[in-house]
């Protein structure tokens, strides 16, 4: 759908055309579901969130600034909603603040990183992602799924902009640890089996 078609569709939705709303929903609901699925810990949460996001979209469509990409706005609404859901649950396990001193700043071993990437499938990465603390997972999803800028991530997660890089790097480290843990367990299990 090009920008002219989208603008026309949005205009029809604003005027109350339910067919247009259906078209918009059909076009974007799968992407929003996938986004929510990555951001939230369960499929049911993602389904709930998708429906709720579109209810919000319908209410807030009047506030959409047509000079910005619609998809970005949609992801912004979705990310705010998902983060609100997670925040309401109060199950965030990570600290609200942190600083760079808590991160290892040494030069990591490129060989080990490459090995890690080679050893794990996308499915395993996604499984690891689900085990991350909420904020770490959200940071990665906002950045690498929603293509959000550091400013937008900072605004959504309510952190200082300078802290976004820390969040992202910490999330990568945590993900590596989760994956390494899984790989080591698998290796131990294999070794144990051989014995």
């Amino acid at each position: 759908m090009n920008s002219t078609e989208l603008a026309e569709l949005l205009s029809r939705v604003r005027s109350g055309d339910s067919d247009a709303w259906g078209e918009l929903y059909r076009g974007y609901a799968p992407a929003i579901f996938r986004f929510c699925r990555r951001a939230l810990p369960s499929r049911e949460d993602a389904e709930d969130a998708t429906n709720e996001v579109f209810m919000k979209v319908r209410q807030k469509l009047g506030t959409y600034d047509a000079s910005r990409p619609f998809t970005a706005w949609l992801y912004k609404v979705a990310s705010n909603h998902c983060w609100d859901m997670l925040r309401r649950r109060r199950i965030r396990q990570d600290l609200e603040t942190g600083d760079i001193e808590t991160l290892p700043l040494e030069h990591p071993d490129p060989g080990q990183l490459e090995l890690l990437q080679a050893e794990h499938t996308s499915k395993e990465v996604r499984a690891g992602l689900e085990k991350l603390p909420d904020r770490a997972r959200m940071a990665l999803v906002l950045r690498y799924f929603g293509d959000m800028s550091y400013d937008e991530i900072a605004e959504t997660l309510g952190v200082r902009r300078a802290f976004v890089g820390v969040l992202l790097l910490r999330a990568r480290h945590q993900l590596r640890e989760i994956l390494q843990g899984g790989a080591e367990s698998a290796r131990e299990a294999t070794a144990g089996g051989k014995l």
Partner: protein
Amino acid sequence: MKDSENSRIDSPHFDEMTGMLYLEQQFDDNRSKLIEAHANSCASCRELLRVLKNETVWLREAIVEDEEPVPARLVGNHEKGGAYWGWLAALGFGAAGAYTLWNGIVEPWMARASDIGFTQGNLMTMLFFSGAFWSGWADVRDGIEFMAIATLGAVAIWALRRFFRRPTRVATATVMGMLSLALLMPHTTAAADTEHGNPSYTLPAGQEVKTDLFVAADRVLIDGDVDGDLVVWAHEVEVNGHVKGDIIAFTQELRMNGTVDGNVRAFAQATVLNGTVGRNLMAFVQTVEVDEKSSVGGTVTLFSQDVQLNGPIKGDILAFVNQLEVDGIVGGNMKVKGNNLSVGSTAQIAGTSAFEGPNPPSVESGAKLASPIEIVMSKPTPQYSTWRFYWHETLRWGAAFLLGMVLFLLAPGAFLDATHSAKKVGLSMGIGLLFLVGLPVAAIIACATIVGLGVGIVLLLIYIVAVYMSQVFVGAWVGERLLGAGIGVGPTLARLALGLAILRVIRIIPFVGPLSALVVIVWGLGAYALTVQKRMRQQSVIA
């Protein structure tokens, strides 16, 4: 430099943070050029950048990759929204229901409840017993008014749904909640004496319990005095002593020969009253006998099969019974709804008398009535030929639809999941049957302990709401079967409205109707239970 505080290149090699921020284009040009220059001359840092870049690609691909199928209802055909009529109708019926609820039930029954002793004086009674013993339940269950309560229950369940996904938290929260309530109770209640029979319990004559007494036993004999309320769960209960508060009994047989200064409230199979009740008698009992030697100082409210009232009653009588025989003195008014009313020759009724039932009441010649009995002859079967019958059925449909709409708008995921679960007909019905029978049993067992009492009663109330809600899920499923999957608010509600209407029509068919209602309850309850179980399991796996 945007993130200079986060980066360090003082060492011979730059760190990982610097590398990542460089790759993510978070540095200004000057800083980027410095890093590039360093990377060009340093194989190690160049290698780090390469690996980090690969990691970003690897991560992005994994996150974006579309592996899991999108739920069908999110990608199905969106149909023309046309449920405005449904919204309007539902709101209209909701308003009518609320109006009926207030004018027909709440206001009169609030006055009635106050008359029969449900005051604010005893927090324990108000919190735990007013709801379960409230005499308006029969009307409420039978009418459109249940909608309001079910809706409130649904809202409460929704409000707690995040917690329901974590069973341990639910249990903790429930127990903590009950403990909090216990702590909030007035001192006299908090200091209650709790007894467990082994297997029976006896309070001997001459002994006095100086507080409320809670007893759970096979047989309970109270020959002594209780300076408070007596709350008892037992196979048989006999009270020969003096209870200065109320008696609240869950038992097969209650025999009250002594004196109660307060009220008697009984859930029993049989209740025999030979003693004195200072205030009111309320009984959900199969058979009630008030002996001529006994007396009731206040009102009598009964939901019973067979009742014989021989002793004097100072206040009013309100009875929903199969058969009532009055041979004593009634100081107030008498209102009876049931099959048969018999007023004996020794009966005296000082106030007005009203009877509604299929058979004319019999009044013996010696009976003294202040005014003739006002009789409304009613037919036991639905009056298919009256508009009122269809109006009530329409209101019932509206109430169920309103509840479904609220559920869908508050928790669309759970609503659609439950509808989806209803597709597994056999499994849903099996689990539904298990819950239909097992849950009340579990709740009653839970009532055997003081902390469990609150949990048990809450469980029973949730159970009642869940039973009512079951039609919503089955209705939504029926609508979806007929019209196909609907996407969005309007189409989903349209399907719900259609499905509920079909269920309502089936419900009014003689013989088939009651059976279909039972099937719907079992089916819908199972679908709901499956949804709750699925969500709990997923949460526990994630946790």
